[in-house]
């Protein structure tokens, strides 16, 4: 009998043969890795063939649920999609929220792991214990949203769909998997699914699972819901993450024109806060855009989704990261163009951050005469939209080049272009300027997924006022470790990080939630150890797949080109400072000087 909240098994489907089997998940594994990102790491290590091509049939693609999914705890309807990234060659784990999480778990499995390659473009149906493949030729070329609608119409009530868009079919290495308008966005999971000849995975609930202590969970859910209405989530609820844009611009932390600057002259046009300040149900103008709706993920009381409509009539969900990546990063200050580009990314099914980062690199290459695309210039809205289409369909040599991501593309172009390719481990940088955020600089450098702001929330320390964000040292290292540990637990329980501010004693409070659901007596200290285990397991997986010490590093530009702040202070992040912080991080994590774990850590992971 598995613990509360769990089924104690994963479904392992082979789409080459069309067969599937159950993989029992012992209590020890579930307690050691919880679910979501943590359990996904364990599954990938166990089921993946070492050294396999991420786009080959031997590379598994795992949809991983968690014990909290299906409970009344706010923001818990989340799942992780975990695979070896075709961008990085290392582990990637993207989280997303939707009814797919609930229906997927209630197929009766804690995870659905897919291997092989279907003989033709197909849809994998998981209906309780039954799995089957159906042809998807009629869905080819559709956007994920179109495929979702089409399939649900064909399959009938109760089905939930995760699908890829054209970019996933064309193997764009930063393609996404989408469901209910949400995306498992980073790392190229859509390309992995496309390489399996899967247009979609459809799931239908067929089982039930109950928490061990329903009354305790209900009480916790009520308490958490109340807290989710408080000031700690106000920014997300009232403004969404777009509010970051003006803040980051004000503190020289907004990457602009491929990290050539940290402030953007068009920031106010993109996120004008002088309007849109009325009551929540009154739409507000953001220059050319109008906020037309606000919505929530499944089982969420925060409601961070802010939908805008451009003058041209297109609607798109606006968040900081997509506006940063397709706006300042590419030098584009026209809100309509940024909105249209965001919508186009959603239609094609590509990650906005990697798209923006790769295009910004290409714009700089074009301006330097390194690639033959004189039309591709920073700030050119039409060029941005044109190149997105070329990428999504791999329809031109330039589109095919950029569909590979900035690291691979820079290796093809050469001529020193790698020095300004803004990625870590091959994953393009999110919208946080490392030169003015030294805790985050470390977090980005050492993170298993690459340049990622969700697995390392070290920017919190930089913005906390508790340390000098321009003078990285041991305090920044400790903060980076702490936020990485917190993320590991939240991403495995899974709870939305937008909820993080409501917890005053996070590990203890999370332990209480997990205890109520599972029936285990979990302590905050145990969860801290679990966090470290998950972080280490990701590192061990990456080492198995070829990680080298040089992979824990930042792009040359960020180490060689200082920034001057409006205060007159010069922000420098030298190689020496970064090296010292990384060394300190390794020491704090108990790793050897090259960043590899010793036997004590390896023994604890339970991966062997």
């Amino acid at each position: 009998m598995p613990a509360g909240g769990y089924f104690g098994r994963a479904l392992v489907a082979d789409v080459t043969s069309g067969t599937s089997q159950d993989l029992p998940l012992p209590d020890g594994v579930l307690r050691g890795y919880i679910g979501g990102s943590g359990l996904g790491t364990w599954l990938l290590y166990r089921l993946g063939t070492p050294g396999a091509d991420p786009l080959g049939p031997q590379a598994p693609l795992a949809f991983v649920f968690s014990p909290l999914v299906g409970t009344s705890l706010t923001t818990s309807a989340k799942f992780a999609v975990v695979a070896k990234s075709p961008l990085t060659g290392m582990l990637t784990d993207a989280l997303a929220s939707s009814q797919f999480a609930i229906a997927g778990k209630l197929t009766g499995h804690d995870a659905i792991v897919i291997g092989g390659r279907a003989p033709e473009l197909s849809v994998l149906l998981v209906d309780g214990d039954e799995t089957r493949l159906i042809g998807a030729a009629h869905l080819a070329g559709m956007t994920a949203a179109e495929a979702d609608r089409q399939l649900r119409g064909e399959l009938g009530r109760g089905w939930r769909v995760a699908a890829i868009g054209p970019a996933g079919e064309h193997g764009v290495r930063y393609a996404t998997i989408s469901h209910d308008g949400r995306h498992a966005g980073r790392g190229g999971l859509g390309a992995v699914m496309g390489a399996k000849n899967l247009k979609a995975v459809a799931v239908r609930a067929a089982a039930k699972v109950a928490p061990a202590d329903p009354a305790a969970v209900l009480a916790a859910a009520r308490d958490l819901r109340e807290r989710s209405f408080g000031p700690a989530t106000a920014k997300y609820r009232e403004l969404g993450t777009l509010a970051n844009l003006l803040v980051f611009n004000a503190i020289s932390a907004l990457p602009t024109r491929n990290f050539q600057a940290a402030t953007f002259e068009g920031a106010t046009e993109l996120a004008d806060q002088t309007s849109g300040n009325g009551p929540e149900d009154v739409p507000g103008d953001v220059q050319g855009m109008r906020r037309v709706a606000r919505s929530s993920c499944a089982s969420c009381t925060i409601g961070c989704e802010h939908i805008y409509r451009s003058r041209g009539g297109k609607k798109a969900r606006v968040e900081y990261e997509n506006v940063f990546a397709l706006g300042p990063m590419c030098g584009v200050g026209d809100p309509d163009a940024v909105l249209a580009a965001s919508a186009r990314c959603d239609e094609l099914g590509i990650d906005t951050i990697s798209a923006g980062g790769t295009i910004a690199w290409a714009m700089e290459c074009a301006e330097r005469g390194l690639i033959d695309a004189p039309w591709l210039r920073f700030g050119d809205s039409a060029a941005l939209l044109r190149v997105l289409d070329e990428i999504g369909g791999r329809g031109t040599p330039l589109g095919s080049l950029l569909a590979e991501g900035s690291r691979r593309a820079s290796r093809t172009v050469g001529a020193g272009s790698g020095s300004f390719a803004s990625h870590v481990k091959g994953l393009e940088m999110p919208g946080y300027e490392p030169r003015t955020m030294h805790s985050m600089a470390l977090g980005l450098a050492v993170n298993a997924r690459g340049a990622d702001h969700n697995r390392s929330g070290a920017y919190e320390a930089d913005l906390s006022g508790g340390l000098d964000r321009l003078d990285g040292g041991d305090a920044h290292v400790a903060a980076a470790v702490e936020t990485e540990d917190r993320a590991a637990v939240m991403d495995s329980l899974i709870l939305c990080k937008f909820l993080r501010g409501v917890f005053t004693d996070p590990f203890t409070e999370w332990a209480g939630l997990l205890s109520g659901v599972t029936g285990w007596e979990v302590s905050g200290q145990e969860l801290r150890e679990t966090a470290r285990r998950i972080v280490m397991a990701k590192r061990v997986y990456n080492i198995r797949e070829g990680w080298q010490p040089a992979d824990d590093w930042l792009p040359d530009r960020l180490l060689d080109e200082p920034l001057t702040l409006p205060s007159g202070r010069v922000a420098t992040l030298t190689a020496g400072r970064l090296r010292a912080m990384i060394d300190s991080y390794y020491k704090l994590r108990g790793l050897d000087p090259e960043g590899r774990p010793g036997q004590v850590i390896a023994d604890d992971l339970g991966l062997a």
Partner: protein
Amino acid sequence: MGTPKAALEWHGSTLLGRTAGIVARAASGPVVVVRASGQDLPELPEGTLIAEDPREGRGPMQGIAAGLAALTGRADVAFVSSTDMPFLHPAFIRRVLRVLQDNEEVDVALPVARGYKQPLAAAYRVSLAAPAERLVKEDRLRPAFLFDECRVETLDDAVLKQDQLLATLDPDLDSVLNINTPADYAAARARPAPEVTVQLFGTLAKGDSAPGPHVVRAATVGGAADALAVVFDRHVTAALNGDQITRDKATPLAAGDSVFFLSADAGG
């Protein structure tokens, strides 16, 4: 004065608290406060180091020697300030420090401001700790003795005000005004707080509060928050001039500062 200058009230803080805070803002390294043995000090900014002055009554040279000694191994240059300069501006400190940063041949950057040499508003190489200590032992207690032994660059009013920022923000070089009598203190305290610019971001700029910029008078971050009815609690931080971020209400402000109040949950 009849009362310790360090503890004199200054817009909700103290003279010493303000001076230490201003120096901390302008310098990139640690701040050291030199005190007489057993002297009570008012609350100081977090991270301020305390050095004991082993011998009382030896004047400024003893303080300079003790302070520089405490910084040995921690910094190469130091700005030395007395405790009683309530109008000291970060731009003044940066201007003076820049002399030593730009010219390795100079040991002391000595302002000659408002007609007087200002050895207690000057920059020194930390390597002067040893000669300063020797001069104290030799009972040669005037800073001029130290200047005789090292390379000094003086900065008069005109030279100081070649720095456009300093000329704009502290045109009369009030940075070097100090307080010696109750009347000095009363006159200084009667001046209005410095004029600063405040902007509100995120949810703080909703409802009745326009984002700004707002021009207010405030001597501390807490004062700026009060001026715009911002509740400066754990959900709010402040960025000074787009640079340092603080949660400390007592962080001192100077003329021309900009303060951005942000949601503490900025990011992700």
